[in-house]
C-alpha cells in the first residue's frame, strides 16, 4: 500500500519538477528577451543612452557654401524619403538653400536652412500635447504618435523649418516615421546619429569640395566643431530671440 502510494507520489514530484523547470525556463526566456529589448530601447547601437552631456550641433561655414549647390538638400531628401508632388506650396522641405543678398553692398551668400535644434525651442513650448519635444542631446523631434496636426508649432517656429504632411505618403523609409496630417522637420538624421553616424547633409557636403557643414558635439571641448566655434566668430540666426540654436553659421 505504501509502495503503491509512493510511486504516484514520486511520479507527481517529477512532473512538478518538469513543470517548474519549464516555467522557470519560460520566465527566464521572457525576462531575458524583455531585458534585451529594454536594452535595445535604452541604449543605442554604438553611442549608448541619450545624454545631456552631449549637445549635437552644426557649424555651417557660409564662405564655403557654394551658390547653386544643392547637394545637402538632395542628400537629405534621399536619406529621409522626401519626394516632390509638384505642389511646392505643400511639399515638405526639411532643408532648403537660402540666398541672402545685402541690397546696399550687393554681397551675396548662400546657406542651408533647417530646424535649428534650439535649446529653448518655441515649437516645443506651444505644442499642446507635448508631441514636439527635445531630446537630452539637443535634437528637436516630433512624436508621430501624439502629433494631432494643429500646426501651432509651424506658427511658432522663427525659421519656418517645419512642414505639414498634406497628403498620403508612399515608399516611406523604415527608419523615418512620417504620416499624413502630422508636422515634421529635420531630425538631424537621428537614426544615423544613434548608430554613431553623421547627418546626411553634413556627409554630402564633406564629400564635395564645399565641406561647409561641420557636425559634432558642442559640449565636447575637444571636438572639431567646439574648437572652430571657439576660434572663429560664428552666429545664430535670430540670435535676438535667445533660443540658443544648435546650428551655428559663419560668415553672415
Amino acid at each position, binding site marked *: 500500500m505504501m509502495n503503491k502510494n509512493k510511486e504516484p507520489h514520486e511520479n507527481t514530484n517529477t512532473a512538478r519538477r518538469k513543470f517548474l523547470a519549464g516555467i522557470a525556463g519560460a520566465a527566464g526566456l521572457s525576462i531575458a528577451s524583455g531585458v534585451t529589448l529594454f536594452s535595445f530601447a535604452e541604449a543605442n547601437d554604438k553611442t549608448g543612452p541619450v545624454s545631456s552631456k552631449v549637445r549635437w550641433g552644426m557649424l555651417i561655414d557660409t564662405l564655403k557654401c557654394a551658390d547653386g549647390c544643392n547637394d545637402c538638400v538632395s542628400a537629405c531628401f534621399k536619406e529621409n524619403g522626401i519626394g516632390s*508632388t509638384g*505642389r*511646392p*506650396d*505643400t*511639399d*515638405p*522641405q526639411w532643408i*532648403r*538653400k*537660402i*540666398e*541672402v*543678398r*545685402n*541690397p*546696399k553692398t550687393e554681397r551675396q551668400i548662400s546657406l542651408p*536652412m533647417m530646424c535649428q535644434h534650439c535649446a529653448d525651442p*518655441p515649437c*516645443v*513650448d*506651444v*505644442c*499642446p*500635447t*507635448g508631441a514636439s519635444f527635445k531630446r537630452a542631446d539637443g535634437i528637436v523631434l516630433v512624436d508621430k*504618435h*501624439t*502629433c*494631432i*496636426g*494643429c*500646426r*501651432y508649432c*509651424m*506658427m*511658432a*517656429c*522663427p*525659421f*519656418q523649418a*517645419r*512642414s*505639414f*504632411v*498634406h*497628403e*498620403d505618403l508612399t515608399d516611406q523609409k523604415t527608419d523615418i516615421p512620417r504620416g*499624413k*496630417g*502630422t*508636422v515634421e522637420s529635420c531630425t538631424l538624421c537621428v537614426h544615423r546619429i544613434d548608430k554613431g553616424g553623421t547627418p546626411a547633409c553634413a556627409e554630402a557636403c564633406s564629400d564635395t569640395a564645399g565641406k561647409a557643414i561641420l557636425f559634432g558635439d558642442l559640449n565636447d571641448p575637444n571636438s572639431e566643431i567646439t574648437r572652430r566655434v571657439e576660434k572663429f566668430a560664428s552666429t545664430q*540666426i*535670430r540670435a535676438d*530671440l535667445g533660443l540658443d540654436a544648435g546650428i551655428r553659421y559663419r560668415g*553672415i
Partner: protein
Amino acid sequence: MATKFIYRQLQGNETKYYLFLCLIGIIASIGGFSAYYMETNGHHVTGMNNHIVWGIPHIFAIFLILTASGALNVASISSVFGKAIYTPLARLSGLLAIALLIGGLLVLVLDLGRPDRLIVAMTTYNFKSIFAWNIFLYTGFLAVVIIYLWMMLEKRMNHFTKTLGVVAFIWRLALTTGTGSIFGFLVARQSYDAAVFAPLFIAISFSLGLAVFILVLAAALSADDRPLGVYIVTKLGRLLSIFVAAVLYFVLVQHLTNLYATEHHGVERFILLEGGIYTGLFWIGQIIIGGFLPLLLLLHPRFNGKKFNVYSAAVCVIFGGLAQLYVIIIGGQAYPLVLFPGMEITSSFFDGAVRSYIPSLPEVLLGIGGISVAILITAIGLKALRFLPTSLEDSVTDPNVNKAP
C-alpha cells in the same frame, strides 16, 4: 422687475420650425462632409499650405469662440452688474454662448491634421502651451455656463445666479485672454508677439458677441411672433457702440505701438499700405464697415430710435469682425518671416516673399457648418426649454413707460 417676465418655449408654426431645422441640418452635414473630404485627401485640397498654415476654418472657429464668450455678456450685465433690464435676455445669452462655442470647437477640431487623435489632445498635456490651457478654458466655460443656466432656469436655485454669474464672467475673460494669447505668445512673427492681443480679443468678443446676440434675439422673437420693443434694442445698440469704440481703440494702440518700433515698419507698411487684399480688408472691412459705419448708425441722432439701424449696425460689426480676423490670421502669416533683417532673401521655400492664400470651397463649407451647428443648438434649445421671454415690448422693458399712470 424680473417677475414680470414669462418665459416660454417656441410655440409658432411647427412645420416651418422643422423645415428650418432640416435646412440648417443639411448645411451642417455639408460642413461635416467637407471635413471628411479634407481629412481623407489631406490638406492639399485646401488653400492652406506650409506657409499659411491656418486658414478660413480658423477664422470661423475663432470668430465663433470669441462670439460665444461675448454673447454671455448680456447675462453678466444682468447678474453681475445688477442691471435688471437685461434679466429677460440672460437665458438666451447663456444658450447662445454654449451653442457658439460648440460650433467653433467643432470647426477647430475637424480642421486638425489628425482629428481622430482628439483623445490624445484631451489626455496628454504640455502645460506650457496656451493651446493646452485653452482646452481647459473652453471645456470649463461650457460646464460653468451650463450650471449658470440651470441656476437661472430653476427657481429654487435662482439665488445662486449672481455667484455663478461672477464665475462665468471671470471665466470668459480668462477664455478670451487665452484666445488672444494664441497670437500674443508667438515670438517668431512680426505681426504677433504683442500683449495687446489679449485685451484686443476681449474687446472684439464683446462687440461680436453682442452683435450676434442682437440679431438672434430679433430673429427668434420675430419667428415666434413675439413683440420686441424699440427701447431694449436701442439700449443694446448703445452698448454695442461702446464695444465697437473699444475695438477701434485697441486697434489704434496695436498699430501705433508697432509704428513706433522701426523693426515693425515692414509689417505695418504691408498691412496698412501695400498688402493688397489685407490692406483693403483692414481699411474698408475692419475700420470703415466694421467700425465707423456702425458707430454712425448707432450714435448719430438721425438714425436714432430705429430697430433696423441697430440690426444693420450689428451686421456691419460681424462683417468687420470677420475682416479683422482675416487680416490678423491670414495677413499675419502672409507677411514673410524676418530671418536676416535688412537683407533680401530668396529660396525654393518662398522665403522673403509674401505668401499667397486662396481659400478653397471645403474650408468655407466647414466654417459655415460650424455656424450651422451653433444655430441648430440654439433652435433646439429654444424649442425645448424656456429661454425666450414672451414679450419684450416697451411697456414691459422701458422703466419710463412703467412709471406712466
